[in-house]
Every structure is written in structure tokens, then in C-alpha cells.
């Protein structure tokens, strides 16, 4: 991808965030720190001036610098199975060793867990709440087996109303209405911009690839609801639009446009992106970064709309809904095929992918490839095997292109 300012800005933004969070937790007694899951309602924390920390984002960093196996090993030594989510294992590892690209996470004052992405996070947060001996605030968001219904929405809304006093009690902070509205507005703006940023890839050639999007995702997850995110994404969007205007694509001679499913394989980002680029293949869209692109909070009814939004995030919807979503992404991005990461760590994201692959192929007439891997644990990955399969897949795409 052509060099753009936003890359450096993002590094600075995230560095500032981690440094501030760590120093604050250590030296500033009034700081309140909360660990929160990636699908959790961070808006509440932002509105209350509580520092949110995302062990999943941290896990991704650990994966990217290839520390996954080392830190997982620490968790495995304690008796945690190697079959558990590698984000969890890395998190336990960093907690006991304080090792990671940022030297470990700051100690939490409490944990906020929302199980709209998986049941794993609840078990994970139970473990960490015991380890740090801090309260666990839990927001239970029932899976949408038969779609979203009023009982689920009411249940989640009532919990919002009960967890806020709980958090107020733990932190001694108050949630005020004006601030909540403002945060909701920033969150919406940020989400809208993120959606527009992802949508720039509708352009042929795409100005960025999903490998870039995986990187640009961090602010909307971790700092949603702040002005910084809005400003940052405005800048990024401008730069991407400029690239489009200049006709510059992220992949030289973009020939094959592919859509990706599941989390990235953090430790193989560079290598996979090079391999794909060498074939003229560009990842133009994915289900993962899009999961943060469609929440809409009404500032006049934040909890009602948040209940709805949080209870129906992508991973909380059933396989039929995932098929719909994947199909529409493929159409939106005018893809030629799709790649599915069967991720050993993430069972709720991965089980159902065989059905998804068949049905999406049937609906779109496009081929798909399933890659077996893990997002952080390199032991579940084989360069040779995956590259051979990718090569064969590209061959198929080529034949199809030539035939049409």
C-alpha cells in the first residue's frame, strides 16, 4: 500500500493510549481502569471517565509480534488447556509475566464482560476477576437463535439499568446524561466513518486491503465514543479518497478481489499479504472489521438502542444471518472468491463455516477456500500447506476469469 500519514498517526494514537493507561493506573490514584471485551459497551466507560482496556486488542498485538506461543505456554503451565482461545492464554501469560509489546496490561479495578461475541470471554473474565481479586460486571446478551426478540432486548436493557449503578458503586463515579449523549454521538460518528472507510474498498482497485483494515480497526474498538477516533478516521478517510482519486490501488495490478471471514492470522499478516499481492489478489472486505460498522445508538434513548445493538452484533447472530451477511459483503465488494479462516481459537466464529462456505458459494456462484489456522498460536499454522492451497485456489480463480 502507498505510504500514508494515517499509519504513523495510528501508531502514535495507540501508543499514547497504552502509555496513558499504564501510567495512569500506576501513578494517578484517581484513575479507574476497566478491562472490557471487544463487544462490550465501552460508551458507558468513556462517559464515566474510566479507562477501558481491551485484552483482545492486546492479544492481537501479542500475536502480531509472535509472542503468542511463549505467553500461551505460561497459561498452559498453570493447567489451562492448549485448546482454549489463544487470546485468553496470552492474557493469562501476560498477567503472570508482565511481558508483551507494551510490557503487560495495567491492573484492572474491575472487569466488564459482554458475552455477545462468545461464551469464552465470560469464563476468561471469571478467571481474571479471581486472579486480580476485582469485581466482574457481566452483561448477558442471549444469542439470536431465532433472531432478535423483545424478550432479549428487554433483558439486556434492564441489565444496562442495573450495571450502571454497579459500576458507579465500584468506581465512585456518576454517569451523567449529557455526557452519555455526547459519547453516543461520537460513537455513531466514529462507526459511520469506519463504515465509509471500509466501503472505500468497493472501488476498483481498492485503496487498501483488509490487512490494513485489521490494523486501522483498533481505535473503533478501543476508543469508540471519543473525539480522537472521529478525528483520526476523518483523516484516514481523506487519504483513502485521495488514493482513489489518483487511481492508486493497494495491490499492484489488482486482478482478484477476495472477501475474508474470521479474525486475522496476526503473526502471518505480512507474509500472507505479500503472497496474495504476488498473485494480484486483494482482500477487499471481511466479516471481522465490518462487525464494528453497523451499530446505531440513539442519543435520546441510549440504553434502549444500545440493548438492541449489543444484543445483535455479528457474532451473536445465527449461521443463517452470517450467510446473509457474508453474501452481501461479497456482492458489495464485487469479489471473485472468498477465504475462510477456520480459527481453532474461536469456536463460535468457526463452527458453521462448512455450511457457510457451501451456501455462500451456491448463492454467489463463487469459489471459497477454508484455511485452518489460529489467530495467535503459530503452532496451528503451516506455511507450506497454506501457501500450496492458496496457489491452487488462485489457479481456480484464474481459470474462471479466463473462461468468462
Amino acid at each position: 500500500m502507498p505510504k500514508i500519514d494515517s499509519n504513523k498517526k495510528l501508531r502514535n494514537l495507540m501508543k499514547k493510549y497504552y502509555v496513558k493507561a499504564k501510567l495512569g493506573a500506576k501513578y494517578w490514584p484517581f484513575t479507574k481502569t476497566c478491562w472490557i471485551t471487544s463487544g462490550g459497551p465501552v460508551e458507558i466507560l468513556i462517559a464515566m471517565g474510566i479507562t477501558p482496556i481491551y485484552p483482545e486488542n492486546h492479544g492481537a498485538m501479542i500475536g502480531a509480534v509472535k509472542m503468542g506461543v511463549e505467553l500461551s505456554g505460561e497459561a498452559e503451565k498453570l493447567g489451562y488447556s492448549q485448546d482454549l482461545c489463544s487470546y485468553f492464554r496470552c492474557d493469562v501469560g501476560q498477567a503472570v509475566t508482565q511481558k508483551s509489546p507494551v510490557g503487560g496490561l495495567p491492573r484492572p479495578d474491575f472487569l466488564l464482560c459482554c458475552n455477545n461475541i462468545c461464551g469464552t470471554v465470560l469464563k476468561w473474565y471469571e478467571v481474571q476477576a479471581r486472579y486480580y481479586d476485582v469485581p466482574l460486571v457481566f452483561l448477558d446478551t442471549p444469542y439470536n437463535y431465532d433472531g432478535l426478540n423483545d424478550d432479549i432486548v428487554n433483558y439486556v436493557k434492564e441489565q444496562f439499568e442495573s450495571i450502571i449503578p454497579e459500576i458507579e458503586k465500584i468506581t465512585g463515579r456518576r454517569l451523567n446524561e449529557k455526557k452519555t449523549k455526547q459519547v453516543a454521538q461520537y460513537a455513531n460518528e466514529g462507526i459511520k466513518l469506519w463504515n465509509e472507510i471500509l466501503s472505500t474498498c468497493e472501488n476498483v482497485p481498492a485503496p487498501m486491503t483488509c490487512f490494513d483494515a485489521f490494523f486501522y480497526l483498533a481505535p473503533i474498538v478501543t476508543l469508540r465514543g471519543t473525539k480522537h477516533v472521529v478525528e483520526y478516521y476523518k483523516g484516514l478517510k481523506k487519504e483513502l479518497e485521495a488514493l482513489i482519486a489518483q487511481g492508486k490501488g493497494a495491490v499492484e495490478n489488482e486482478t482478484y478481489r477476495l472477501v475474508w471471514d474470521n479474525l486475522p492470522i496476526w503473526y502471518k499478516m505480512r507474509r500472507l499479504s505479500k503472497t496474495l499481492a504476488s498473485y494480484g489478489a486483494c482482500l477487499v472486505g471481511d466479516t471481522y472489521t465490518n462487525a464494528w460498522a453497523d451499530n446505531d445508538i440513539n442519543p435520546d434513548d441510549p440504553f434502549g438502542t444500545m440493548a438492541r445493538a449489543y444484543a445483535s452484533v455479528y457474532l451473536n447472530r445465527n449461521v443463517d444471518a452470517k450467510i446473509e451477511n457474508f453474501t452481501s459483503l461479497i456482492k458489495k465488494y464485487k469479489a471473485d472468491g472468498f477465504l475462510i479462516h477456520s480459527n481453532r481459537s474461536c469456536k463460535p466464529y468457526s463452527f458453521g463455516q462448512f455450511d457457510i462456505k457451501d451456501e455462500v458459494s451456491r448463492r454467489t456462484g463463487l469459489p471459497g477456500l477454508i484455511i485452518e489456522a489460529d489467530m495467535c498460536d503459530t503452532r496451528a499454522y503451516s506455511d507450506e500447506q497454506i501457501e500450496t492451497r492458496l496457489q491452487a485456489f488462485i489457479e481456480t480463480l484464474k481459470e474462471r476469469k479466463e473462461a468468462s
Partner: protein
Amino acid sequence: MNAKNFPEIVADICANPYEQLKRYKAAGKNIAGYTCSYVPEELLDAFGYIPYRLLGRAQNIRQADRYLQTYCCSQIRSLLEDFINDEYIGIDAVIFAHTCDSMQSFHDIFKRNNPDIFVKNVNFPTSINNDIAFRYALAELKNFAAALEEHTGKTLDRDALVESISVYNLNRGLLDKLYALHRSYPKEIPGVTLHHTVVASMISDKRDINGILESYLGTFDENEPEDDKRKRLMLIGSINISEDIYLLADEFGAMIADDDLCTGRRYFAQQVTEPTIEGVARRYFSRPHCAAKHRGLYSREHYLTGLAGKCGIDGAIFLYLKFCDPHSFDYPDLRKGLEAKGIPSQLIEIEQSLAPSGQIRTKLQAFLEILE
């Protein structure tokens, strides 16, 4: 049927689960398969179904690999294989309940691929420790009853529900008594009979089991326990359909004095104290819970150390099904919690789809030596 033969009768039912299904089918009954103890069987029973617990049994999993990755627990994969192998022909409905990530996805996969079966999920909350969650659970049980009404064309009959609840309560009480008597008469009531009786109860009309179980228990005198100094073990885990651990414990002169298994005490613990849907929901909020549910940070540890104390447990066996996430998350802290109460433990990982290996034997033997 003779009460004395009870152990053989239940052993036979367990060994031939599909035959049991065929017998009921031949008698013109409707069968509702269910995947988890959070499915309110009393409601199914009140609608005239025989609830039939689906326990994956296939040992050679091949066809299920077309639908599910190999890193899914073998309980689910075996079950899917069984269905593909047509072992469950004649099942009228398959009912799920919300528990773990794997079961959640399995529901979706199963439903998509079995359009001819009535498939329904009871979306039980994950929290089971507060009033908000209770209200949701109740609403969800009512939704389930409404779905059954719609599907069967019947309305839920209050008297039928009262009767079903009392039949189930009786069964629960009898199973509890069986466990207690086993502790007094470990030779006469072998451990494996506990396992057989629970599993047979799960796949039978409770009315068929209750009478004979009651007579069998009546043959023991509660006041004259055997004088037996066996080491007392407790099993902790999700699902176990293998007899090995029970037989081996007997062989080594120890006993399985109690358990916290889906296929054990977690299935029958606690009675429904009020004969209504509310009562059914209430029981789930007070009975010992599965690792996939949340009742606070120490609820399982406190419960297990309490149970161990009550039953005089010498050692605990974590009998873990590979890839069963909720239970393996809990393992290290539970092990520590038990240890702090002076109860050593041993982890044994099992795979339902694999033939029993020498592993269990070696590990159990070594563990019992430590307990000596």
C-alpha cells in the same frame, strides 16, 4: 421385572439406547430428543413427549467432519455422526438449550440440515443469579411452551404439568437416594449402577423407571451400612458415557462416591418446589450449575468443596472431555480450591469417540496410590 435385577435392567437400557427409542416408537409415543439438562423436560412430558437425552455415541467419526471441525468436542461430533447414520430415526423433535459456544453453533448447523425435524432452542440465560435473568428465563420457558403449543396443536394442560413435575421430582429424589445408598453399600450397589441409572432415566419415560428403582432401593436397609473403608472419589466434568472409570474404581477397591457431571448429579439435583412453569425455572436458579452458566466467581468451587466435605471425599477426578471449553477454563482454579481444602485431584482427559485407552487405568491407579 424384578427389583433384584435392577442393575442389569438399567445396564441393558444404557447399552442399547437406540432399542429403547424403537420400543417407545413402536408403542406409538412421540419422542423429543434433547441435548442438555437445561431443557425443561417437565414441559415436554406435559405435552405428551418422552424426553430422550441425546448423548453422542458414535466412535468412528467421519461423516460429521463435513459439518464440523475436528476441534469441536466429541460429544457433539459423535451426536451428529449418529444422526447422519440414521440412529435416531423416529425422533419427532430435537430441543436444545443455550449453554456453550459449540452447542450454540451446533444448533444452527443441525437445524439447517434437518428441515424435517422440529428443532427448537430454549434460550436459557447465562446468568443464573439475579431477578432480571430470572424474569428472562421465565419469559423464555413460556415462549418454549407457546412454541410447543403451536407445533403440537395442544394447549398446555395445568394438571398434566403438575403430574409431570411430580413424576420428575420422584425420579430426582430416588436418584439422590441411590447415590446415598451406594455410599453405604458400595459392594452391593456398584458405582457403575449409578451411571446406568442416571443415563437410563434420561432416555426412559420416568414412570417406567421410578417404580422399579423404588423397589430396588427398598431392598436396602439404610441403617445397616456395610463396613467399608474404600477411598472415596468424586468425578467432575461435563459428559461421560463410558463405564470405565466406575469399573476401574471398583477394581482398585475405591468408589465413586459422588459427582458433578451432566450425566450425573447435575442432572437430578434439586426438586421443583412449586408445580408451575415458575417452579421449573426456579429450580435452574438453585441447582448446581454447569460451567457454562454464571452464578458468581466462586459458586462452583464452594459447591464442590461443600459436596466433597459432605460425602467424605478423599480425591477428585476431573474427567474432562477434550475441547470442552467451559469446563477446562474452570479446572486450574477448582483444582486449587479443592487442594486448599485438602482434597487432591487428578485430571483425566477423555475423548468420547476414542475407544477406552490404558490411560485412564494408569492415571487412576497412580492417583489412588497417592491417596493411600
